[in-house]
């Protein structure tokens, strides 16, 4: 009886030990993660242009992880939660990739009872084409070439979900099957690219698609073309390339519309003046030597405290342009952050401008925090210091409903008509090198300009606007201030403008 009990006890102990070891082995195994990273456009881009990395992640257990995509001097970071049996996809926009090398790293956060395991790393190379890139998405047919262009054959999965990634491609030809295979996000990005005057030829697009895209193209719709054959597509492209498109306003041009960031400088000038006055008074009235010594120490602490308590100033400038009657206006925005301290500054990106956010200076090291749920950049982090100005550049398009016509009457006065249904606010009219005040006009109504002689462009705003208007007699445009209350935080000093080219009658 006793020996049998002992044997049972031993067996039980062995079983328990076995289970415990199995448990330890189970707990000690790091999660198995599969990471695939594929660049858009078959891995092609051009120097200084943005692109996109399509990342697929799967795991055998629920884990929290951090994904980092390093391209040039920018890092895009995203905190994600992976679920077993589900493939997570992220379409990460990357700015200028410099030498073309992109590193994707996934680091699993360590959790109780399970080790994190080594980070998963993938190295990608983005081929940098010196020639303009022609992207051709054709389900059938042979290769397509166009003189002076490097052709990249594309399938629907090669097209990006971020509009900013379209800057890699100079001309795009898509046929109906490829267009039909695009998902909603790809279509939205394609439409945004069309609105930003991207040259696109739709090959054999059906009537429904043509109708859906009508009015979606920017630059008067000249860059969104439909063709029934490859020959016609080539011909249309040739004509389109022969005509020059309005260039995007440069960041320097936008910077001219802002005032230099002097608020911090002014505060410090006052603080230093107060300090020197206090130090002189301390020397005059205190005999004990520690007092004049204490004043600089206290002043240094006070100056640091002042810089810590005052929020860093920020300016946002938005410049948008459109053609009379177009459904969309394209914009370029510029946001400047003035540093006050040696610190790592984290700034939120306005969601309305997050479609294409990147540092204006590609050499600026920056970390962009990507919100995987919303599929866009949520904030930016960068090192700053006193008097350092870091700038973010944004671009994209927004819906617009402004239509105006302009005509010079027999008496020499200019009649400007609001051809749309909605009223305009007051703005400026730019015509033949002169700036006129443009009153608010109700929908369908008109106003007469020229009773008072227009002024030559004086300020930076008028100069910038005039430089964007065609110099010929038909070059007439209206400039209105943009309402940015919904875009920027109240703490940001923001200004924006909309320039709409008139249609001559």
């Amino acid at each position, binding site marked *: 009886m006793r020996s049998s009990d002992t044997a049972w006890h031993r067996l039980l102990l062995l079983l328990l030990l076995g289970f415990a070891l199995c448990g330890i082995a189970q707990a000690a195994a790091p999660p198995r993660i599969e990471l695939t990273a594929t660049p858009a456009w078959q891995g092609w881009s051009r120097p200084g242009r943005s692109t996109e990395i399509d990342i697929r992640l799967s795991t055998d257990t629920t884990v929290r992880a951090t994904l980092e995509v390093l391209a040039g001097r920018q890092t895009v970071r995203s905190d994600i939660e992976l679920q077993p049996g589900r493939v997570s996809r992220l379409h990460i926009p990357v700015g200028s990739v410099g030498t073309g090398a992109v590193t994707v790293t996934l680091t699993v956060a360590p959790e109780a009872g399970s080790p994190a395991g080594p980070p998963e790393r993938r190295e990608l190379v983005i081929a940098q084409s010196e020639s303009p890139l022609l992207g051709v998405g054709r389900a059938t047919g042979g290769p397509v070439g166009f003189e002076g262009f490097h052709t990249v054959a594309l399938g629907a999965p090669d097209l990006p979900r971020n509009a900013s990634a379209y800057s890699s491609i100079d001309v795009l030809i898509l046929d109906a099957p490829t267009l039909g295979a695009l998902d909603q996000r790809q279509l939205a990005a394609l439409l945004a690219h069309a609105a930003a005057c991207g040259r696109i030829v739709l090959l054999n697009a059906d009537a429904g698609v043509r109708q859906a895209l009508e009015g979606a193209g920017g630059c008067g719709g000249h860059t969104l073309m439909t063709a029934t054959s490859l020959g016609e597509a080539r011909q249309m492209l040739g004509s389109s390339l022969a005509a020059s498109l309005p260039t995007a306003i440069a960041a320097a041009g936008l910077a001219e519309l802002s005032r230099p960031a002097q608020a911090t400088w002014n505060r410090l000038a006052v603080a230093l003046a107060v300090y020197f006055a206090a130090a002189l008074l301390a020397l005059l009235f205190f*005999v004990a030597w520690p007092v004049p010594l204490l004043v600089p120490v206290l*002043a*240094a602490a006070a100056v640091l405290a002042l810089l810590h308590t005052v929020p860093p100033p920020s300016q946002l400038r938005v410049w948008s342009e459109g053609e009379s009657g177009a459904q969309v206006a394209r914009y370029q925005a510029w946001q400047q952050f003035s540093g006050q*301290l040696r610190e790592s500054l984290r700034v939120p990106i306005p969601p309305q401008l997050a479609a294409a956010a990147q540092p204006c200076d590609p050499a600026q090291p920056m970390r962009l925090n990507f919100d995987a749920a919303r599929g866009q950049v949520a904030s930016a982090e960068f090192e700053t210091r*006193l008097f350092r100005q870091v700038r973010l550049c944004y671009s994209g398009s927004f819906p617009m409903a402004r239509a105006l016509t302009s005509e010079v009457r027999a008496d020499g006065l200019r009649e400007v008509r609001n051809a749309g249904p909605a009223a305009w606010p007051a703005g400026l009219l730019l015509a033949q090198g002169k700036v006129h005040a443009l009153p608010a006009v109700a929908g369908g109504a008109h106003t007469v300009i020229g009773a008072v002689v227009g002024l030559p462009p004086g300020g930076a705003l008028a100069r910038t606007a005039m430089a964007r208007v065609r110099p010929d007699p038909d070059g007439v445009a209206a400039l209105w201030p943009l309402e940015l209350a919904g875009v920027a935080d109240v703490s940001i000093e923001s200004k924006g403008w909309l320039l709409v080219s008139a249609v001559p009658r």
Partner: protein
Amino acid sequence: MNPALARRPAAIGGLALAAAAALWWMGSSRLALDDGSDASHKAAGALVALWLVRGMALALLSLRAGVLRGWRAGAAQALGLIAPSWPLVVLAWSASTAALTQVALAEGLLLAAGITLPLVGHGLRRLLRPADLAEALATTLGVGLAAALWYLRGPWSLPTG
């Protein structure tokens, strides 16, 4: 002149030096802000100028002060020369790319020199008779030290950008 000021020529000098450096640095930073260029170069320049000028002034004054007035008075005078620039050093460091350890080390060296040099002067006074000889030697040594600092100013320079 106010008697309190007359008693503290080094402190007045230190304050005047800090004010001049502040004027130059704030002016050049304003110009850099207006044209959108990098202001950190000017901040690094201000830091180096403050270290060099205070170092040279310490060399010239503190040894003699140790001989003439003893090391405690000499050290107090040296502190009066060094300290008024501290708020400006903090600001210029914030605007520069200099490492905090480098700035702290330089200020620490200046403080150490501000205590050591009067002590050396005091020692010279005790070792050498008559006092005029000690003063002459302290002055010569001070000028030599200041000249050496000027010629060896390369290592004081800071990375910029």
